Structures are given as C-alpha cells and as structure tokens.
C-alpha cells in the first residue's frame, strides 16, 4: 500500500491537460503550482498490482514530460 509524491513536469504548454489527465487517473491527487509549470502528484494505491497499473498509466500520458520522486512510503516495509 505505497504512498508516493512526485513533482510532475508537463510538456510545454500542456500543464492544464496534465492536470486534467492526472486528476482523472485513479489513485492520484494533484496540487498544481499557480505560478510555475509544476504539479505536485500524490499517489496512494491499495496494492502492488494497482501500483504497477498506475505506473504504466503515468508512462502513457502524452502531456507528462517527467516525474521526479520526492517521497515514498510503503507500510509493508
């Protein structure tokens, strides 16, 4: 049941699209910066399967340029 947070950087001009994409992705919460093209992404998945699916979904997002991990927690560890 891991919890991660990331700084998500959108591709140029796609911040709003990325916000919308992430907001509709299961297990994701977003906190967009109001003055920079940066989005805080907090993920909270119930198990490893869901986490794997989420990671794949994130990789497939066209609006996402990069993800930078800032925090990780797993209560199984």
């Amino acid at each position, binding site marked *: *049941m891991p*919890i*991660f*947070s*990331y*700084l998500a950087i959108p591709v140029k001009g796609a911040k709003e699209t990325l916000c919308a994409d992430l907001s509709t992705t299961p297990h994701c*919460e*977003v*906190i*967009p*910066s*109001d*003055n*920079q093209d*940066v989005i*805080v*992404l*907090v993920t*909270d998945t119930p198990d490893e399967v869901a986490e794997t699916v989420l990671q794949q979904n994130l990789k497939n997002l066209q609006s996402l340029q990069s993800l*930078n991990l*800032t*925090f990780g*927690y797993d*209560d199984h560890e």
Partner: protein
Amino acid sequence: MKLNRRRFMKYVAASSAVASAGSLFPGISFGDWQQVVNNSGLVSWQKAPCRFCGTGCGVLIGVSGNRAIAVKGDPNCSVNKGLCCMKGYHSVQALYGKDRLVKAQVRKNGSMVDVPIQEALDLVASKLAETRDKHGKDSVAIYGSGQWTIPDGYVASKLFKGCLGTNNVEANARLCMASAVTGFMTSFGLDEPMGCYEDIDHANVFVTWGNNMAEMHPVLFSRMLANRKQRINVKIIDFATRLTRTSQAADKTLLFKPQTDLAVANAICYEIIKNDWVNWDFVNSHVSFHKGKTNIGYGTEDHFSFQDEAESISLEEFVRFLDDYTPEKVEKVSGVPAKDIKYLASLYGDPALKVTSFWCMGMNQHTRGTWINNLVYNIHLLVGKIATPGNSPFSLTGQPSACGTVREVGTLTQSLPHGLVTNEEDRQMAAEIWDVPLGNIDPKPTYHTVEMFRALDRGDIKFIWIQVTNPMVTMPNLKRYRDGALKDDRFVVVSDVYPTPTTDVADVILPAAMWVEQEGMFGNSERRTQHFGQIVDPPGEAMSDTWQIIEVARRLGFEKQFSWSQDDYIEKIWEEYRRFHAGPKHEMASYEVLSKRSGVQWPFVDGKETRWRYNPEYDPACSNGKDFDFYGQKDNRAWVWARPYEPAAESPDSEYNFWLNTGRVIEHWHTGSMTRRVPVLHNAVPEAYVELHPDDAAELGVVNGEKVKIISRRGEIVMPAQINGRGVPPRGMVFVPFFDEQYLINEVTLDAFCPISKQPDYKKCAVRLEKA
C-alpha cells in the same frame, strides 16, 4: 487509527513535494493546496490577515480538527504575495500558550478567583452603572487598541459615546498613530495614505525616516530589496538616529541627532527652492501655504491644553521662513553633513526619480510628531511627488487595525465613526445610525490616552475597561499610572488572552477570544480592510471582545441598540458601520465582498478598489477636472506648513547625559505577551537589553551581558548590555526594546507628547548610566 495515520502520510508526502519544489523553483506557489488537502480531511486552509503588525499580510491558517497547526503566506494577497516574516509564520502558536486565560476572574478579598463569565459580566455592568450614577458619565472609560477588530471598536464607541454619553473612549493607537492622523488631517483634511504598497514596485528612491523597516515591517522591506535587485536605479536611504539592520541593507545611512529631523526636513525644502526643483505647475494648482502656533509645549503637566490655529501665509513668507534652515546651519544642529542634506534634497528634487518616504514610530512618537509629518508632506508637495505610482509619502502603522479600527471607526475621544464629536452634522449622523438621541453624544472631547490615565490616577475616572492592550507595560512614566490604577476606589476591568502586568492591576479579568477564534475585520496601513472568519473555537469561556461589550450593553438596558444575534452579529455590525462611510471618498466593500477576498482597499466604488487617492486616474472621488483633486481641505488644496525646529522635551545635560531611545525587535511584537509565548521567538530573544555604543561601554567598563543601571528623573532599571549587536546607537545614546515585562523600561521614559496629536514621545528622554 490506521486511516488517520495514512492521511497523515499523504500529507507528509505532499509537504515533501512542495518543499522540494520550493528549493528547485524559488518563489513557486501552491495557492490551491488547501483545496486538495481538504479532500484528504486532514488539514484545511483558511484565509486571514496576520495578527501582528500593520502591514496586513495575508496568511492561510492550516487547521486540523479544531486546532490551528500551520501558517503559510497567502499568494492571493497582494500585500505579501505569499511571504511572511518570522512572527507571521509562528503566529498560530501564540494561540496555545500554557497560561492562556480561559476563565473569568474577579478580585475577592484581594485575590483573583475564578467565576463563570456571565457572573463577571454582571459585575462589570453593575459596577459601571453604579460608578456612572455616583460620579457622573465621565467617570467611566474604555481603553482599547489597534488590535481591536473593527466590530470590537465599533460597539465600544457605540456603547460609550452613543449610549452612555461619554467621550472617554481611547485606544493605544494614540501611542503609535495619533501624529500620523493629525499630520494627514492638517496637510490634507482627511486621514490615511494617498498611496499604497504598489508604490514599492515603482519608486526609484526609498527614504526611511527614523524607521527600521528591516525589523518592523520586514515583508515590505523585502519587497523593497527585491525591487532594488530586479530594477536598475533603485536606492534605499536610511535616515536614522542609530544603526540598525535597515542601515546594513541601505545604500546610504544618514544619522541625525534626536528631534532634528524637523530641521533637516526644512533644509531639504530650502534646497528644493534654492535649486528651483519646485514643480511649479503642481504647487500653483494644488498647494496653499500656512503656519501655526510655535513654542507649543510638551504636555508633561496635568490638564495641559493646546489648540493650534492655522494662518494662511504666502509662498514668499514660506521661503523667508526657510532662510533659517540652510544645510550649513542645520548641519550644526543635526549633525548631518550639509553635503548629505543636499544629496538627500537632490533625490527628492530630481524630476526623473520617483521617491517614496516611509515612516512609523520615529516620526510619530515625537513631541512635534504632527509637525514632522507635515514637513515630509511639504517635501513631496513642493516637488509634486505624491499620489502617483512610486511617489508617496507613506505613514506605516504598527498594529493590525490601527487604521481600520481606531482611525476609521474613530475610537479616540474626539472622533466618531464619521468625523468628530465637535461637529453637529457628524453627531447627527451617529445618532441616527446608532438609534440614540442626538443629545446623548457629547460635543466635547474628554481625555486623550495620557490624560485618561492621569485622570484615573487623580480619581476623575473611577472605572476603566481595558481590552486587547497592555498599558501597564506601554504607558510612559509608567509608575505613576500603575500606582493610579491600584488605588482603592478604582475599578479596572481587563479583557485579554494571557496574564500581563495589566491583568495584575485588574479587579475583573475577562478571557478573550484571540484573532481567528472569532470573526472580525482589520484595516491595514494601505486602506485595506481584511475580513477573517472564526477558524477555531476559543478556549474555555473565552469570548470575543465585541460580544463582551454587547453583553454588558444589554445588561445596561441598551437591548435595542445591541440586538444582534450571535449567529451573524459581525455581518450586521459591519453593514451598520459601513453606512458611516457611504460615498466615493470612503465607500467600503460589502460584507459579502470582504468575506471572499484577501482584503479590499477603500474607497471601493462600483466594484473597484482605489490604489491612489486624490488622483482622478484612480480615485472616483476626484471631481475638479484637474490632474489632482485634494478634496479634503476646504480650499481643495494640500497644505504646506511652516513648522520650525523646536528641541525635545528633555535633552541630555550634565546630570543625565545620555539619550534614551526605545523600540522593538523583529522577533517580538509590542509587549511580547503573545510572541514571548512562542518558543522559537522567545528563545531567539529571551530578554530585553540595552544597546550601547562600544566606546560608551568601554568608558563605563561593561562588556556584553554585564548589567547596566539606567536612571532617569522618573525611575531606574537594571538590564544587560548589548554592544555591537543588531543595533548600534551613536555615542551618547542608548536603545532599549520594550517587549520584556521583566524590564519595564517605561518606568524610565517621559510622558511628554505632541500638543496637537497628544501622542507621547518614546524616543527621547535623558538618562544616566551606571555599571550595576
């Protein structure tokens, strides 16, 4: 339990990301964060103005359960744009000191005992009524504060002036802002600045007049520094009596001898005229010249009375008056080299430079406080650098609602929410809105603050209710006023949040709700009204000051005037109060608008705030068809005043050979009753000290931390020395911050005041030193 832990971990994850973003992208802001964390159910964020100084920074209060746990700057507030100072960031901790007053107390047989608050309010009402019946309406008084919310001050004025018929209403802003008020009134006919903080983003030159902004208004000072970094041709000139952190950051510091700012300001005007830097178009169209009385005294005696009289003079007479103030002559009085005076004048005089002057206590706590305010306006008026972006003579305030509550609501003896008690039209308006007979409102002012406490000492006042302030630390010549408050037949009620030297003299202590434990509004230095909701519950039986007054008013039989419900009384009070300011000169935003925004500047007309008054491009009240309209004075002009240099009430002599200057440090706010209960702030500066020049310290034979006895004609105090600390006074001066109730420096200070504003001078008296 597991769910709470998980929510907590998600919050930590988000915090970590936000912190990382802050280090990677300086200045990054996440203004919507509160909406997301609300969804998690852990922390919600709600807007409020900061509780401390008069800057009026917008903050977001993080709340978990019923507890305020965090603060961040509000990026949507134009005042601070997401930044706070150290006091702001730690402000919520001030709510939770261990010795918070949570129950009412009443003195019985010499000891304070807990009682239900309703019983205490019964006693307050009965004692007030009994005193009034026995000794007359002017034997009762209320003394409030620039930390009163606007509704607090409004109901106090309505009860005492409207219902009880006494003008014994004063506030501690008399001690910090009264000279600014009389300065504005005599120069412009209306109170409060024409400019706003946006001036910082336009000015080329900032002159701080006796104003240590780096410590006292750090967020605004940061904005100045940021502008200097980002724009070319921006300078900060520190015009001061001692070296401070502002001096360290300034481009140039000019040190002047105490009180001689009057002479230097006149010398600047002399230079402006001599070099023909006068903006003649502006002066001919918008300025008139005046003089008042001179040798006006210092108010150190009881019943001191003074009334200035304005007399029109010609420009030629004004120029002749300035002949006594050549830079060379003024150098001898002030210690400021003539070349530096000429340099300062050249900055004001250069038409290519926009100049903003900032001041606060240095000019206001001054026995000629009104005059020095006038004189700085003179400079700006002669060169026409006023009421346009970046050109601003700007009086800062020290308390969160000195403007909003004391100056706008009018909680001073001579004032009403609109106008003066001496003016029949203003009394009629008040009587109508308050629903009281016109005859209730006394046309004669009674006691200003110093005289109010003298009256308490003499016995002319027998009952005083003190709210949100700590006069038993802040009154100058303190011992007299503390002894007076302790006399047998005086009855002192104190509403506060913590025990203080003022609650020590109380017969009744009422526990007060603090800041965001109640709904209210503040008004900051730039005419910005800031609403805040009740975010957390007050502890125990603590009650808002507004509601305490309403409870007592109802017990006194004024149910009709104080009929509001506890559910919406703040909204109802605001909408009643707002009627006093209807019209384009001072129209205020509705409750609905205020509750949604991070502050609104008045005049607020047709949904638009006013950044610069008297300028028709911005100000809807301008109507003369010209480029400026100084509509406050009867002649529609701004007034330049011939005001001479006169010495301080008490200067060093052979017996008392040092100046004593008092003030503040960045970590503590006013008397420290809140900030000293915040561990980080308390540990940063745990006790007060006396700053000495290193040569004076060497002569005295003291090193850092050794004890020094400071002796004046009124008292003495022993405290540790600080040498080459954050502030360094010149030889012959010592400086003491007043935040520490263990060292009551005001037992040493002098209760001399400006005869026009009645504001005491805490910056100048004579002392001698001994190694203790």
